[in-house]
């Protein structure tokens, strides 16, 4: 049942490749990459209860971890992607070891500060990152196992593969004892420790995994859409995954996709209606938070299907 629903979503997204027009196909590819980022964020926030305000640094670590070796050293995309994952995991582990000495608001502020420091580093080392404007990865280099990622179909399928692997990974994690203990830490850390769980080590693991997935999304974004830029390291890109996860349903596997797609099309729709589209989007978000505080998938879980992972 659980796997049925999620594999159904994965299959549905795959079939959309041959259904959608060129414009929608590009949008859904982007949504799937950003939803991957949201799923990474969800591991820390939704499942473990760690509210980070600095995940943009992990997204950027993946983006530049892939972009710099490709752009400056001509590394092939496959190897650069592995480097990007390593950058995300390394930064995640380092930040986790330091930031998890704090809890609650302290954790929010410390992660925010680390992200700001990362952002400023990107601007400071402009020789490598090209600062504000970033750099464009040459089309010739953007191939994966010989397939050109500038081709819309191949780009869509690559985004789908990244999304699907992450979705299955988080679903597997959420139903494993490790994932259940993360939920226990979110619900009541003191109690989890008194059941014999080493909660600190598990939180470090959760943040590291969350950072690695976020970096995979950042690397995927740079690779599929061809550009890097310091904008992706700004605080806005730390808040966005929080919003996506809250809207879709924190602590659900499918919630990040729902939230990301919902907000993408909400802004798309609102900007057709008015130039003050953020005001309209904001009003819808407030209403949704009031009436479905657990997000869309959270609402489904509380009303329709208690076992939704």
């Amino acid at each position: 049942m659980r796997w049925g629903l999620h594999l159904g979503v994965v299959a549905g997204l795959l079939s959309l490749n041959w259904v959608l027009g060129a414009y929608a196909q590009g949008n859904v590819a982007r949504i799937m990459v950003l939803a991957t980022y949201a799923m990474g964020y969800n591991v820390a926030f939704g499942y473990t209860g760690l509210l980070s305000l600095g995940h943009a640094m992990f997204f950027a670590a993946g983006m530049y971890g892939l972009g710099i070796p490709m752009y400056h050293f001509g590394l092939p995309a496959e190897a650069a992607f592995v480097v990007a994952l390593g950058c995300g995991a390394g930064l995640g582990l380092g930040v986790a070891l330091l930031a998890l000495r704090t809890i609650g608001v302290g954790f929010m502020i410390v992660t925010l500060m680390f992200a700001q420091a990362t952002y400023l580093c990107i601007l400071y080392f402009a020789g490598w990152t090209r600062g504000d404007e970033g750099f464009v990865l040459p089309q010739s280099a953007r191939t994966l196992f010989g397939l050109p990622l500038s081709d819309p179909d191949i780009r869509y399928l690559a985004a789908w593969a990244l999304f699907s692997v992450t979705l299955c990974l988080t679903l597997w994690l959420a139903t494993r004892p490790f994932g259940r203990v993360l939920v226990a830490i979110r619900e009541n850390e003191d109690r989890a420790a008194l059941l014999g769980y080493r909660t600190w080590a598990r939180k470090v693991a959760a943040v590291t995994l969350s950072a690695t997935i976020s970096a995979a999304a950042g690397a995927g974004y740079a690779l599929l859409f061809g550009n890097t830029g310091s904008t992706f390291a700004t605080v806005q890109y730390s808040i966005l995954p929080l919003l996506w996860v809250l809207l879709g349903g924190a602590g659900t596997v499918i919630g990040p996709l729902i939230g990301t797609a919902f907000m993408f099309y909400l802004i798309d729709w609102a900007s057709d209606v008015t130039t003050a589209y953020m005001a309209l989007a904001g009003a819808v978000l407030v209403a949704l938070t009031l009436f479905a505080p657990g997000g869309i998938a959270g609402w489904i879980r509380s009303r329709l299907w208690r076992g939704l992972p």
Partner: protein
Amino acid sequence: MTLLETRALTRRFAGITAVDAVDFTLDRGEVRALIGPNGAGKTTLTSLLIGRLAPDAGSVHFGGRDVTRLPAHARVRLGMAYTFQITSVFADLPVSENVALAARRAGRGAHVDETLDRVGLPGRGDTLARDLSYGHQRLLEIAMGLVQAPALLILDEPTQGLAEAEIAGFRTLVREIVPDTTVLLIEHNMAVVMALADRVTVMDRGRVLAEGTPDAIRADAAVQAAYLGTDRC
């Protein structure tokens, strides 16, 4: 044989010595009651035993090993279990998941349903813990301790909020788990203490005031003055 021992264990809070140089010994297989008026230091002492608090001085030995510097989760892994005075279950998780979290860590994942039956919550596994009545949440707390099959089970006011029939069930339960499990019971209900305890330790103002069999404690004049004579029991 000694299971747990403290030597000159001391903990102060802002000038108040909540636990004052306590030497406390627990034998394997016994049921020990820890009684005393509110503020006597009972919960502080048990928090020092399980490792939720660090002592200012003194040491704790468990199973012949000095555990004073071990964090709580490590002591639990050595075979201690603790149930909270203020119910502390995973409110938004189902009852069975609460017990499973306790069971899996101890490698006893197969014993969840059986334990729910034992404490008197049969068939309630799918209920969210927050939807249980207060008394049933207390029983869930006990189940979470019990399912770990610990060497030492520390129960902090387990019968508070339980109905008479549930208290009777609890008494049966404790009798069943000894001597495999040693039980340390903080309890205000004197009928439960007298019925279950092999020995009783009385605390007052951070110190051990008296220790002995239930009958000896009942006859002790100092205890009478400090505790039993008041209307608290």
